[in-house]
């Protein structure tokens, strides 16, 4: 829409080169209008992005009378900081610990196995390497719903229901994408380095541990952050495996609070805010790696 006048200007410029200065002026005006329009569009989008967060924060500091007031107000009065203490007690510190332990274990184990696998596929020349790699990669195409039920039955048969290993290991097993990612990165490392190491008599493990991993720090950081993020948010699999209060993770506790109609709105929103806080800190500290990690996942296409 806003570009219509500039289009005309552009045409004029094309046919009559002498009119250039005039065209430029029109272009400048158009560019100013364009700038205003971009700004307006960005502001509307930003509002849509921010309102849910601001509304969550606002509600998290209200008691029920204020939360269920009509018309709704933005500034709580009085401000109930105590909602956050109540929320932490209701979600339970143990639940936060479980989530952190769950996420860190997945990052560490999946990261270790994926780098090892990636190294084997990139740097060890073993028979049928490419065929095996393609089959492994193909398993990424299998919808998680297909394996969900049988995996649950495997966990039941192993006696791992309501255990950390039952929650963690089936997720660690979904490392095909990480393996692919690290393989791609390791293949781009200079061949001469590995030759030199071989001549020095370094075996594969020492090649892997002594310089391949240290050289892969950027990929490792991006991969770890994205994996941590995914694990911290995970709901369905823990919901299926967990049976007791002590083994729950944060998303399960949030879903329960939100589903309980008699629950105080303020405390529920405070709990949501608490669940976001660790990731928010990580996001503010390492925004670049979030972006890089997600952009990296686009490589699989």
């Amino acid at each position, binding site marked *: 829409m806003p*570009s219509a006048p500039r289009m005309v200007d*552009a045409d004029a410029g*094309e046919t009559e080169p002498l009119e250039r200065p005039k*065209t430029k002026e029109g272009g400048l005006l158009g560019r100013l209008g*364009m700038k205003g329009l*971009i700004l307006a569009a*960005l502001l509307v989008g930003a509002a849509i*992005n*921010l*309102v*849910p967060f601001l509304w*969550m924060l606002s509600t998290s500091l209200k008691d029920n009378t204020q939360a*269920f007031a*009509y*018309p709704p107000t933005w500034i709580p009065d009085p401000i109930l900081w105590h909602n956050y203490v109540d929320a932490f007690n209701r979600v339970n510190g143990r639940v936060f610990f479980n989530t952190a332990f769950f996420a860190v274990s997945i990052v560490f184990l999946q990261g270790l196995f*994926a780098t*090892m696998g990636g190294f084997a596929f990139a*740097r*060890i*020349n*073993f*028979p049928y390497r490419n065929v095996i790699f393609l089959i*492994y990669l193909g*398993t990424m195409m*299998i*919808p998680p*719903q297909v*394996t*969900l*039920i*049988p995996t649950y039955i*495997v966990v039941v048969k192993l006696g791992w229901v309501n255990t950390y290993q039952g929650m963690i*290991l*089936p997720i*660690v*097993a*979904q*490392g095909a994408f990480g393996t692919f990612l690290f393989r791609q990165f390791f293949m781009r490392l200079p061949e001469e380095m590995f030759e030199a190491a*071989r001549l020095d008599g370094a*075996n594969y*493990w020492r090649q892997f541990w002594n310089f391949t991993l240290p050289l892969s720090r950027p990929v490792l950081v991006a991969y770890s952050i994205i994996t941590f993020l995914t694990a*911290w*948010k995970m*709901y369905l699999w823990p919901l*299926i495996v967990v049976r007791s209060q002590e083994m729950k993770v944060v998303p399960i506790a949030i*879903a329960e*609070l*939100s*589903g309980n109609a008699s629950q105080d*709105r303020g405390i*529920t929103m405070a709990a*949501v805010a608490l*669940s*976001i806080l660790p990731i*928010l800190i990580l996001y503010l500290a390492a*925004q670049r790696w979030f*972006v890089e990690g*997600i952009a990296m996942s*686009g490589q699989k*296409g």
Partner: protein
Amino acid sequence: MQMTTAKTPSTALRLFGLRRDKRVRQKKDWKAALWALLFLGPNLVLFLIFTAWPVVYGLYLSFFKYNVLTPAKYVGLKNYRDFFDNPTTPVIIKNTLYYAAGAVIPSMVLPLLIAVLLNNAGRPTTTRFWRAIYFLPLVTSGVAAAAVWKWLYAKDFGLINSFIRQLGFQPVDWLFSLDWAMPAVIIMTIWLLMPFNIILYTAGLQEIPRDYYEAAQLDGASTWNQFRNITVPLITPTTFFVGLNTMLGVLFGGFDTINVMTQGGPLNATNILIYDIYQNAFQYFKMGYASAQAYILFVFVFCFTILNWVLQRKWVHYA
């Protein structure tokens, strides 16, 4: 990839190969295989237990009646017949398609527009500021976002209805309305997936050579014309990926949102196939029937993916 693969053995040959006979090389292969087994061992064990075996076992289960507690009973194709005879099946399939299309199509368009706007927002610091805001939903889980949006959608005290009233329209009981529950879930899903797709598009935009735009500017092409004739066609590989990724994301990840916001209600209005599979398996313990459903979904997604790969030749431009 091919080249590097071919390079490694030849380099190895050049280094050690000339003097070695075939027997020694075979011994070396055998040694390499052992090392590979060591490196791939953990992956292999987990893969066999939690992927390979479940894929086979799931298919096997779909021919049985099984509730975990009592032994499985063979029922042949009954589970598949039941699925197609079930009166709610057409509703669930319609909902699944509605949800997928409703979330995927806007997710292919809106994030591209925003990524372009963000690229043209001004100085790098300004762009960084806007990006920080637009990427903020990254920090929320599906569950946390759904809990907040459920509260935004509330009939009497929700913020959205208060806004609608101020504009002078009738408020809607979003999550309890047969017509509006699904759009409500879809809007929230688009919001939640937005940052991922903006990032993918931003990365894709960087792949488009600058000189194309410079040449177009010299020819006097308008901003809109540049967007239509350079950006849109050259970004199609990303568009394709975003579409596929979003579809898989909503088809397999929609569970969190739906379980918190609507639990498939009201009257199955937001009940999609993955949610029905979950309920059948883990609430009604119809493991065999749910496995059959999962395999039908598998076939459906597989066909859809193949169709997409075929169709992409018609509209995706690779440089």
